[in-house]
């Protein structure tokens, strides 16, 4: 410790230097907790994360009962995997991009750069927050789906397969979300993240299988949204591993992470 120059008061001062970083895992936990709390506090993000998926599920099931949509099987069984995929996408991409964009704008990322929290800890904190919110989404959406009569048919193997799809989908969409947030202004990130979410919701073969899109369905297979939806449907409907879609997600994750690592600007 530095010798104090201020006489006897120095001994009892609460401000006497006692520097040091908290243990790494404690820092990561604190970071994840804060990010989760702030994500759940944000009304717009809750809309994207929960309200829209629930509306899509309930609306799709009601619409199918009235004969509006033709599906291969019971509507709730086909739609629920898609809605879960949509929920993964909303948090990993839209919520994460918007939150990170405003963190840059408000100088938070710069300020944490001068704190004891390393960049890896910041990233782990974000991953922790995204996964926590996704668990909340999954619990709510599965409850709604079960209430609507969902009966998953993939057997016990469906659960690890769906988790694998969720993890790879999160990696792909989170790296794309961070790329967006790290290169554009916060307002542009907000607009584009929401727009992309809506476009993929409607035309990205995430909610509905690609077969519902007619001739363009094959082309949609390269989209991360279609790949995530396909992987979830394969897991929860057939209990099978969708190698092609999972590979598409891995490629998107690698592309996104490489670009984000190179192009992300902290300020």
């Amino acid at each position: 410790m530095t010798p104090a120059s201020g006489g006897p008061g120095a001994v009892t001062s609460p401000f006497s230097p006692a520097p040091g970083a908290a243990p790494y895992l404690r820092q990561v936990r604190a970071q994840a907790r804060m990010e989760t709390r702030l994500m759940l506090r944000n009304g717009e993000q809750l809309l994207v994360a929960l309200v829209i998926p629930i509306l899509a599920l309930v609306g799709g099931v009601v619409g199918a009962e009235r004969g509006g949509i033709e599906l291969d099987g019971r509507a709730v069984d086909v739609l629920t995997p898609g809605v879960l995929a949509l929920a993964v996408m909303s948090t990993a991409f839209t919520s994460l991009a918007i939150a990170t964009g405003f963190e840059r704008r408000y100088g938070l990322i710069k300020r944490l750069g001068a704190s004891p929290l390393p960049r890896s800890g910041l990233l782990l904190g974000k991953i922790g927050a995204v996964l926590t919110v996704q668990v909340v989404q999954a619990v709510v959406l599965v409850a709604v789906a079960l209430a609507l009569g969902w009966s998953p048919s993939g057997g016990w193997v469906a659960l690890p397969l769906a988790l694998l799809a969720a993890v790879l989908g999160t990696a792909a969409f989170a790296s794309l979300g961070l790329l967006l947030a790290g290169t554009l202004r916060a307002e542009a990130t907000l607009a584009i993240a929401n727009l992309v979410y809506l476009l993929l919701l409607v035309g990205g073969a995430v909610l509905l299988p690609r077969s519902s899109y007619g001739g363009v369905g094959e082309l949609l297979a390269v989209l991360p949204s279609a790949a995530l939806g396909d992987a979830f449907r394969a897991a929860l409907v057939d209990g099978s591993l969708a190698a092609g879609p999972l590979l598409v997600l891995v490629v998107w994750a690698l592309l996104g992470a490489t670009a984000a690592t190179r192009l992300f600007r902290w300020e």
Partner: protein
Amino acid sequence: MPAPAPAVEIDGLVMRYGGTAAVDGLSLTVATGSITAVLGPNGAGKTTTLETCEGYRRAQEGTVRVLGLDPVRERRALLPRIGVMLQAGGAWSGVRADEMLRHMASLHAHPLDVAMLVDRLGLGECGRTPYRRLSGGQQQRLGLAMALVGRPELLFVDEPTAGMDPAVRRTTWELLEEMRDAGVTTVLTTHYMDEAEHLADQVHVIDHGRLVVSGSPFELTRATGASTIRLVVTEPFPPEAPASLQEALGPATEVTAIGPQSLLITGPADASTLAVVSAWCERHGVLPESLSLGQRTLEDVFLQLTGRELGDEALETAR
């Protein structure tokens, strides 16, 4: 007891952006346990210098050592030991002040008591207001609290009291003085003369990225034995007036125009100087509006050394 090693050593620092040098061969040291002010107008290179010490930027030329460490290569070892207050921002847009402070505390091993800090900086008034809706002064105080909460050895604060009302500035100064008494070294940038004069043990005046002069406020303002006379006249004087007054007074004094109707005369403020000034006014048909004597301020020092003023804002505060 041997003098402790300097907390900060900057030697020949050059930082260029595009074609222009924001910092242009700057060398200075910060003594351990001191409050050291880096004083200069906007754009003088203060923030760039500070951010190089904080490891945000790599020195393009020259060397920077902070607590004996290279701030970029040894950043992980350095960061837990320093406290940083950015010029603006630094929190989540939707976070509450106490929440943000508690979070910063949780990243450190032996943080200060958050409730005590909230109380000392009057952050309780922020209540549940999200960061983006706090006033500028409240954001400043939170930024300062975030810099202090990890109990650093060395504090870098960038324009700490910008946007604070006078009463809060006083409290902030008292807090920084208390930190010094506890053994914390503080480096602060400011363009407020009174802040540097009141608070700093050592002042480095910089302009255009270069060191203009260093010294304690006392050394800078009093050591020459000089005083000042401010002469304000009723009508704008002719352009040759400063030179002719300078000629009349001789080399022991220095005449600087600080506006179309005011002159600053630095030198022995004795009866003979005053006699020359009034004779000069009479000869040129100039009617004095006010003639005031005073000690040299840092403002005067800066004006003389750089030929320009720190800015209207700073002048208002200094008067």
